[in-house]
């Protein structure tokens, strides 16, 4: 179906299909077996929405009577679109969701719990990377099935590292800092050890997770930013800028990071799989042999590799769906090993299903080895609906110290106050619920 079709037209047509289906059922009451006609509406985001189209005909052939209606939504508008659809009671049967959005939609009671269905399904939680699977569970109940995974790790310039006398990717924070110092000291033009865009929250949050900070305390009722573990990570992150190992730039100012990485302006970058194809495409041919990927360092060498974020997208079923059975079959199909490999081939998304990683299509790429290792060491972020806002507050707190506006103590105090305020409603609701249960 055309991607740009308007919702009204779309809804009208769905209504018509339903009416026809109802009529057909009324006229043919004896139509037994699996012959229920169902039109399953799937919302997929961005590029995935374009590419998944080619996987659907095979599913429809294998499931006669089930039609899939695909609606493609741009990633930037997806969050608003899904929330408005929920308010307007026009949610699809199933959708692709960024896995950090799951807690929010679970809080709205918009999603169907999948535990019972998974019990008799062809896929099990152990078929996926454990850290990734965990992002789909709220209070022990799964609400989504991972579709593809994202995580962040170190992309670095092997030639610059070798030139600086570094023999292996860093395994501990101190080794990492030393490597960056050496790269910084190389003769030639101005150079930085690493690019950490100061308007991104992923890097300080990853470091905090590595240091063992919980970020939130008391069942997500309050921030936990006076925890010495958080402070340690925060200090480390900020010190990289104070030592001028990382440039104090935001994303909007870097303009073309690929070119600057190729120029050696910065020798490493913490980023994700979406940049693998960008690196291949945008970095000049003569520099293609000079970069590779490595898992992130840990606080101490014995814990290597350090943890990273469990990102990616999941497939979820909405509570209001009338075709949950068929929708779940579609999820099972899309999470199947063969479709996962095919999806990687088509678009480069990393499979969530571990078995798919043994396929030659994935083992052939040396840059993927580090990703496979890193994915064994990923942790979900705190699963509260307010998370994204909290994450931004963390980035802003670090930015205040990096740009010299506040001392670390004041910045952390402010962060704690802000986050406690953001969680006020959640505290009220949780307390009300426990009071209600106590009575």
């Amino acid at each position, binding site marked *: 179906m055309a991607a740009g079709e308007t919702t009204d037209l779309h809804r009208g047509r769905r209504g018509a299909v339903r009416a026809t289906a109802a009529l057909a059922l009324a006229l043919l009451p004896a139509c037994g077996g699996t012959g229920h006609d169902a039109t399953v509406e799937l919302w997929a985001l961005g590029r995935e929405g374009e590419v998944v189209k080619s996987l659907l005909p095979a599913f429809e052939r294998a499931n006669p009577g089930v039609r899939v209606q695909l609606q493609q939504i741009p990633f930037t508008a997806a969050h*608003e679109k899904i*929330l408005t659809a*929920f*308010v307007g009671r026009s949610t699809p049967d199933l959708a692709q969701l960024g896995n950090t959005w799951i807690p*929010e939609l679970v*809080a*709205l*009671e*918009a999603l169907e719990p999948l535990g019972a269905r998974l019990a008799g399904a062809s896929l099990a939680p152990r078929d996926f990377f454990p850290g990734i699977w965990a992002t789909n569970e709220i209070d022990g109940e799964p609400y989504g099935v991972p579709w593809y995974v994202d995580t962040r790790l170190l992309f670095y310039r092997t030639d610059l590292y070798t030139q600086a006398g570094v023999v292996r990717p860093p395994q501990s924070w101190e080794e990492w800092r030393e490597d960056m110092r050496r790269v910084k000291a190389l003769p030639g033009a101005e150079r930085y050890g690493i690019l950490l865009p*100061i*308007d991104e929250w992923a890097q300080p949050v990853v470091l905090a997770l590595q240091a063992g900070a919980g970020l939130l305390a008391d069942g997500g009722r309050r921030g936990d930013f006076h925890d010495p573990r958080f402070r340690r990570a925060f200090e480390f992150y900020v010190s990289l800028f104070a030592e001028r190992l990382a440039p*104090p*730039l*935001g*994303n*909007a*100012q870097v*303009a073309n990071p690929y070119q600057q990485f190729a120029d050696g*302006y910065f020798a490493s970058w913490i980023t994700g799989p979406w940049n693998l194809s960008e690196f291949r495409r945008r970095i000049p041919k003569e520099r293609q042999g000079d970069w590779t990927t490595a898992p992130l360092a840990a606080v101490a060498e014995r814990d290597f590799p350090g943890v990273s974020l469990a990102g990616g997208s999941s497939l979820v079923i909405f509570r209001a769906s009338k075709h949950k059975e068929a929708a779940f079959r579609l999820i099972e199909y899309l999470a199947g090993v063969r479709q996962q490999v095919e999806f990687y081939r088509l678009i480069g998304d990393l499979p969530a299903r571990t078995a798919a990683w043994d396929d030659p299509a994935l083992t052939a790429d040396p840059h993927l080895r580090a990703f496979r290792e890193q994915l064994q060491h990923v942790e979900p972020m705190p699963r509260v*609906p*307010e998370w*994204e*806002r909290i994450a931004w507050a963390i980035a*802003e707190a670090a*930015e*205040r110290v990096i*740009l010299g*506006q506040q001392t670390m103590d004041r910045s952390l105090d402010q962060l704690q106050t802000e986050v406690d305020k*953001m969680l006020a*409603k*959640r505290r*009220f*609701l949780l307390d009300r619920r426990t009071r209600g249960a106590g009575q």
Partner: protein
Amino acid sequence: MRTRATRSRAEARAGLTFIAPALGLIIVFFVLPVVAGFLLAATDFDIYAIGDPSTIRFVGLSNFAALLHDPVFWKALANTFYFVLVGGPLSVAVSLGAAMLVNARLVRFKGFFRTVYFAPVVTTMVAVAVVWRYLYHPRFGLANQILALLGLPDVNWLGDPRWAMPAIILMAVWKNFGYNMIIFVAGLQGIPTTLYEAARVDGAGAWQQFRRITVPALRPMLMFVGIITMIGYFQIFTEPYVLTGGTGGPLNATLSLVMYMYKQGFRWWNIGFAAAVALVLFLIILAGTLVQMRLQRGRE
């Protein structure tokens, strides 16, 4: 007498019937949302309320109290005023200057220059922002190369909290002055040349002609342009949004009130709080407009 009264009542009824559709639309799409906005501002409507309306709490004026204690709100307010008080007059002055240049008798290719100056107004903001981001690039940007030619040190335009707002103002003025310029050109063309000729005969210089003829004759345009520019500049959103990638950074140095409202309302879903911000912005714009009208009337 009586017949006239009945007739006027009948006329009133007919008139009401005619304007009813328009009135209905205004009520549904303007009055009701405004009332809803007032009501929302008195609640803590948020993401939880979307799922379960029973979690909405009536909070009275505490959104406004929270607003007054929020340093980010004050920062956004200060930024907005900075933008309006510096960018607004600058924009009007540049438009007026450009209008007089384009309208000057000695200038050739008037239509060409009018088009050139008007072009930024009709260019997509996002495309403009992409280009300006390159102009402001700390290492390769044209802005810094010009500074270097003048022997001045580099400026981290969008990365330094002190320079980010001037950078946005510069771009906004460049982007918007063409529209006001066209209004001024229209005004200038309406001034009879005989006035200038008479003034020259009386020995008035260029400055005196400008002070005594151009400005008084343009007063209605100045008032219109002043108010429209002020209202538009108070609502600044797109320029910092696209130039800073939606963050309002660095350190909220370019966060405007509308951006703050957008962030609170549509990114974090604190609809109640965002409605309170909107209300405050409305009051500020109302006050600004009243002051400007009073000033203009005082001069007449």
